């Protein structure tokens, strides 16, 4: 038994009206015989059956519109048994096969700069890119510049920054804004502790002496590795204060304070530092610093810091009392390593000592957490081999 369907006669033919049957139930039909006429957009067209047989059942009355593929009649082959009457009614119209959904045409995505666009600044694309590279704040620049901003305006703004009065320069303003908000909103508590760095430094020197200069590890990398290990054990210090509650961060993305050559300080994040070995930390740090100075930072590195480490040791400052960058909840300050008289086990000696300080947000954590962190930091620095 086979179904005789409304044929598709053209690519753009969806349906047709069955005008007239040329055969009736019980008629014998041969291959290619015209069995009906249908009305299409192009006029009446005869339709034919494709195999020999007996018309078992007419399923559509004349003058009915049918989609392509709709069963119009049942054709029984010659040696098949005719159907009993009650079975005939069971054949209901079949739905045409669903339209094959169009494979989505791949669209090559256009790179859109992330910064907000509420106030349209008239600036050339190249100037916008240069401003991002040199860390020039466009809001400040656009209020001052008349007409369109070009590369030249951005470059002059960047060079002036070195000499411009502090408030003038875009970056200074951005930092000033964050600091003032931080002071008013965040109730800071401060803790400090002295850490004997001699064992760690000697261990490091031994390590470096056996290595080529290309694999040399600097103390800063060791310190940052220790802070990250310690923070992993005290996760409350690694996260954000938002809508009145602490949200701890999965990843440890320490913002590293890096001085720009023409003045100004940025704290780009060393993303996922918790997954880095000591060697990887050193490489990532060196890369981050050179990219920061070349102005090639990624958006995520400027926005996803979960804690900040200020390592101003290079400039000889003993103790660093930092201000937390909102919405973070902690800041670790590492002072300059200096030789200091050290009393231990009733013996007096000279050791290389570093002052480590912690600034904490009292809403998120309390002094005890901070003390626990500093103690953990000290332990890690006494067993540097564990930091590898």
């Amino acid at each position, binding site marked *: 038994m086979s179904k005789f369907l409304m044929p598709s006669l053209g690519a753009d033919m969806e349906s047709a009206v069955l005008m007239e049957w040329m055969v009736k139930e019980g008629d014998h039909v041969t291959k290619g015989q015209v069995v009906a006429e249908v009305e299409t957009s192009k006029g009446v067209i005869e339709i034919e059956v494709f195999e020999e047989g007996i018309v078992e059942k007419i399923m559509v009355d004349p003058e009915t519109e049918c989609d392509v593929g709709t069963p119009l009649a049942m054709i029984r082959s010659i040696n098949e048994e005719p159907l009993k009457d009650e079975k005939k009614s069971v054949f209901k119209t079949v739905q045409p096969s669903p339209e094959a959904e169009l494979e989505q045409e791949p669209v090559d995505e256009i790179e859109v700069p992330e910064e907000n666009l509420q106030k349209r600044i008239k600036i*050339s*694309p*190249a100037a916008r890119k240069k401003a991002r590279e040199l860390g020039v704040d466009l809001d400040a620049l656009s209020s001052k510049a008349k007409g*369109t901003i*070009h*590369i*030249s305006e951005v470059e002059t703004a960047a060079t002036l920054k070195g000499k411009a009065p502090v408030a003038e320069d875009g970056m200074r303003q951005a930092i000033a804004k964050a600091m003032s908000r931080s002071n008013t909103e965040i109730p800071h508590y401060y803790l400090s502790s002295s850490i004997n760095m001699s064992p760690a430094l000697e261990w490091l020197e031994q390590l470096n002496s056996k290595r080529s200069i290309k694999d040399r590890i600097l103390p800063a990398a060791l310190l940052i590795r220790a802070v990250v290990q310690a923070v992993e054990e005290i996760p409350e210090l690694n996260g954000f204060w938002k809508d009145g509650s602490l949200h701890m961060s999965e990843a440890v993305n320490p913002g590293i304070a890096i001085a720009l050559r023409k003045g100004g300080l940025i704290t780009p994040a060393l993303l996922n530092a918790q997954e880095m070995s000591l060697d990887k930390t050193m490489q990532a740090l060196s890369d981050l610093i050179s990219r920061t100075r070349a102005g090639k930072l990624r958006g995520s590195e400027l926005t996803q810091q979960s804690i900040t480490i200020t390592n101003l040791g290079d400039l000889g400052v003993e103790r660093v009392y930092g201000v937390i960058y909102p919405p973070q909840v902690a800041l670790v300050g590492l002072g300059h390593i200096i030789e200091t008289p050290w009393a231990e086990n009733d013996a007096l000696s000279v050791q290389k000592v570093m002052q480590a300080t912690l600034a904490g947000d009292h809403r998120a954590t309390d002094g005890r957490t901070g003390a626990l962190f500093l103690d953990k930091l000290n332990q890690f620095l006494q067993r540097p081999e564990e930091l590898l």
Partner: protein
Amino acid sequence: MAENTTYREALRQAIHKAMQKDERVFLMGEDVGRYGGCFAVSMGLQEEFGPERIIDTPLSESAFTGAGIGAAMNGMRPIVEIMTVNFSLLALDQIMNNAATMLYMSGGQFNVPLVIRMATGGGKQLAAQHSHSLEGWYSHIPGLKVLTPATVQDAYDMLGLALKDPDPVLIFENSLLYNTKGALDTKASPLPIGKALVHRTGKDITILTYGINLLKALEAAKTLAEEGIDAEVIDLRSLRPLDDESIMESIKKTHRVMIVDEGWKSGSISAEIMARINEQAFYELDTPMGRVCTAEVPLPYAKHLEDAAIPQPKKIVAMARRLMEES
């Protein structure tokens, strides 16, 4: 190394050498034989190679272009000369529906190794029907390659390269170039099809152009240099494929770009190039892109009007100056 060979002479030498080397190469077109070619490119060739290989055709652009395609499909390496791009409109169906599509439609079975040469461009007071510059149209069609030799060396090199190409290559020779003179080294290894060439390096602004407008752009660059504007002038040499890499590389240096194109702006090759720059070098642009094209008019007969319509060195200078002042 011949110092001042003419562009026309370079073409003739290239045809002559190709026909001597390969019996499958022959030249077919209106008045290419006894008359010696409408622009005298094939002067003397029929005496040497005979009428069977330098074939004068009736004025049947569609048939003799289609015949060129058929002969190429059947093992020959024909050069069809359509007198000017203006008459090529009668053969556009053969070029687009047969030459450009045969390989693809046949599933890779039949190539069309055919070269079609045509003169192009205005500037000779030949009025509207004889002054078109439509190479940009043809560069829209996948399956074709479109070359625009501006120098004597390219006139010689490009024909050789085109004849070796397994696919149809169209060569547009601006009719004002035939009399120009220049150095020709027939031993030099030719720059491949699809490579642009920097004719003058500069750091302030990139000028992209092709064909006759290369000469106008170089003249403009001299004037600009006197005003302290250092223009980089690039000869595209090929409109399909376009040398995106060289274009973007130059813009990354100068951050300013303009195009000189004798086509009408709407739907022109200059429009296509600007779109590609927008897609590939948007963040290198310090000013909007500029262009100097033919005014959107059928070309007038009167000289002062025609000169006002088509690109001129002083228009190129004005546009470059404007872009410099902008930034």
